């Protein structure tokens, strides 16, 4: 009888220990996730501001290691919901605006006219020097829904007609944002499959030495940007850019 009691007691103790271990494991799981910036950045969008601050700190403290060449791009977790029809329409309008601005006879004034007609409140600032000419930066202050940070750099001087060297905008992050941007670009620029594709990054070679690329922004991309304001919640925004290609990396 005594033996039976001892056995029952031992079994009970084991059950309690197992239960405690299980409980402690469940409790520690979220802590581990918070330590992972990628996970925390997704979670914080739906959580309170203190959690967001924690994520910000995690983002800030994260080092910026070199992107190991040849490796897949850092996964960008989209934080927004699906885009609306209005936002997709904006995306297509902006892609068309980019496509038209690099047409052989397109002028900076044409772009300004297009942006004005869309009521995007474009503004030009000029950086000029006697040695390397002028760089006009065109920024739109009133973006179309679902897009933002339109930015164009025009180079030229008294003897060189102005031409666009870089032009870009961003599209709202979302589960299908990259595919939507790719489709909009393919329609606007009349291009097929990208010439270069690595992870979510796609690039097409256009005429006149221009390249078109689309890529979701990761934490390194938003760091120290000299033109745009970013916080960690902007990770996953999709940038579409057209620029003169200085060289080829394929």
């Amino acid at each position, binding site marked *: 009888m005594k033996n039976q009691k001892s056995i029952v007691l031992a079994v009970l103790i084991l059950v309690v220990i197992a239960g405690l271990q299980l409980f402690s494991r469940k409790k520690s799981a979220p802590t581990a996730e918070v330590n992972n910036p990628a996970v925390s950045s997704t979670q914080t969008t739906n959580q309170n501001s203190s959690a967001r601050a924690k994520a910000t700190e995690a983002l*800030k403290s994260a080092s910026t290691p*070199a*992107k190991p*060449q*040849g490796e897949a*791009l850092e996964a960008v977790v989209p934080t*927004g919901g699906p885009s609306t*029809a*209005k*936002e*997709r*329409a904006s995306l*297509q*309008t902006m892609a068309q605006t980019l496509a038209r601005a690099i047409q052989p006879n397109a002028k900076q*004034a*044409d772009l*300004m*006219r297009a942006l004005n007609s869309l009521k995007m409140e474009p503004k*030009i*600032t*000029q*950086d*000029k*020097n006697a*040695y*390397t000419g002028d*760089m006009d930066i065109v920024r739109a202050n*009133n*973006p*179309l*829904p*679902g*897009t*933002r940070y339109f*930015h164009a750099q025009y*180079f030229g001087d008294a003897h*060189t007609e102005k*031409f666009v060297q870089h032009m870009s905008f961003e599209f709202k992050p979302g589960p*299908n944002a990259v595919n939507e941007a790719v*489709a909009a670009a*393919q*329609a606007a620029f009349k291009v097929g*499959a990208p010439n*270069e594709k690595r992870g979510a*990054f796609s*690039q097409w070679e256009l005429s006149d030495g221009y390249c078109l*690329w689309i*890529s979701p922004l990761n934490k390194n991309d938003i*760091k*120290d940007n*000299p033109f745009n*304001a970013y*916080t960690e919640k902007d990770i996953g925004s999709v940038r579409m850019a057209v*620029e*003169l*290609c*200085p*060289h*080829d*990396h394929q």
Partner: protein
Amino acid sequence: MKTLSVHMVKHLLAQSIFASLATLALAHGEHAGPNALWSDSKGLVEVGQCAVGQDSDVNLRLSQSAHLQTKNAGLVTLSERTLLRVDIKQQNAPKLEAEIVTLAQNMVQKQASPVAGKGLVKQEELQTIDDSVIEIQDGKLIESLKGQFLQVSMNDDQYASVVCNQNGKQEKYFVFNVYAAHNMDPVSRIGINVKELQIFRNVKIHSTDEAEDLLTAQESKVQSLPGDQNTNAPAPGIWSRITSQFASGGADAKVAEVLGSRNAGSSAETMNTQMTAQFKSNAMETERSVLNKTVVTGEEEDIDEEADESEEAAQAAKENEELEKKAEAETVLTTVICTANDPKLAVRDEKMAKVLFYGDRFEEVKAVQDWDGKTDAKLIEILFPNRKAGANTGWVKKEYVKLKSECAPLQQKLKAQESFEAKATKQANAAIIGKIKGLDDPNCCTFPTLKRPTTSYKEGMRRFQWRRGKHRLHAACDLYRLHGDAAVAVAPGKVIRGTYYFYQGVYAVEVLHSGGFVARYGEIMAKVPKGIKLGSVVSPGQTIGFIGTVNSGCCKPMLHFELYKGTVSGPLSQARRRPFQRRADLLNPTNYLSKWEKKQFGVSY
């Protein structure tokens, strides 16, 4: 093996076949597993179990009139493009241990003993094999490869390599693409272990340009061939088996099984393409009606433009004039807190109910743009880039946020400082002018990175004038270093164009250097070193940026270094000036960099 028609061959020849070959080799880099391995005793052998090797330097170099310091035979002069196996353990050593791979006739002074083929060679007298095409001439066990061309296979600008289990041993093999003379596609890939190099015993080594000329000379031969036959038909045996497997896409299977991650990537890519195609055909069609309601279609605009062409031109001219006037009025794209007298400005939450923190007068801010496309007429959300993340955004009245150039109190303050600054600038400019006389001044210059580039900037796509198709040439030397390494000023100078978007998410700055030459430091990070801004005076070796990595993830971090004589003015990029799309005074920086490299590090590529 694919064969090309005479017409196609002509077309390909006209389009610089070997430039395309090089590109193709890279394009195929994602699946660069070999289809056969080379063995000195057996010739071509079947591939065993292989895994992707860690990218590293191949132990092969070419001489450029190099001298081999041998123990037995003294100084041996090597003819140009003698293939050498080198010991690359000491990358930065001025001399490397080397062994001649190609036959002795490549040496000016013939050496009978193979021992005489070993010795020390100056690293600066060697070049990598990236830009060379190796034509197999003759030799034991290589009959099937005779007349084929080999070029080292690159994977994202790294040498492609695999580790294979051959006869119970793990050996590393570098992958070479194999081309037949008339075929633009590689007909196969061979894995070559640097310990077994008999395959290269009797070869001719061509530069890509020379190979192109060689093929042009063969054009008439090809034209005269009855029925468009290929003279380089493979010999029976393993060679024909691997080439036919390669052409049908089945040859990679054995390697593909163990190249798991790469093939997973390609599957994902295929799926992505399918998804995109599906999305394009379905979703976009249904959304088009929405688009048509909200934006003017391209067709409608085209019609309008044709109808009012002359009126449009006049209007555009007028707008251009206005544009010029407006542009001249604004100079800097910096936005600041602009209060009349208050030293602080309360920054509030969105409802303007609670003060979050205080911003300083004239403190730099950035306007946040929301995704909803709504802008408030009176309020604006701003971010303070120099404050701690998480406590750096809030709302203020729009009237307090202005461009630096439009903030009157700040301009007044700057004007008061002007005489002092003008004096300082004058002194600084005098210091710049007085330092060196130009690029050919003996005191010019310092290398633009603090340590030597990890790879030669004289070869491959890193070199100046690397050709991409017919129309574009590389206008810089790409200096490979580590992400975040300092990019430094090569000479005294002044920043004449601050950080701007350059390419694939990296940036550039332009510096006018003492003596009047201009350098563009491209592919740097957005992060700006303290004290560097538009108008900053810089000294040689001063950090002016940090080496960045393009967002495509394709490449190693690098400094894209462009050099201009400074004899003309105007933008450095010039879209219509082919083939460099650069200003007329663009210089080839290679020799300058080489000189500075040697001066600074005691050795140069």
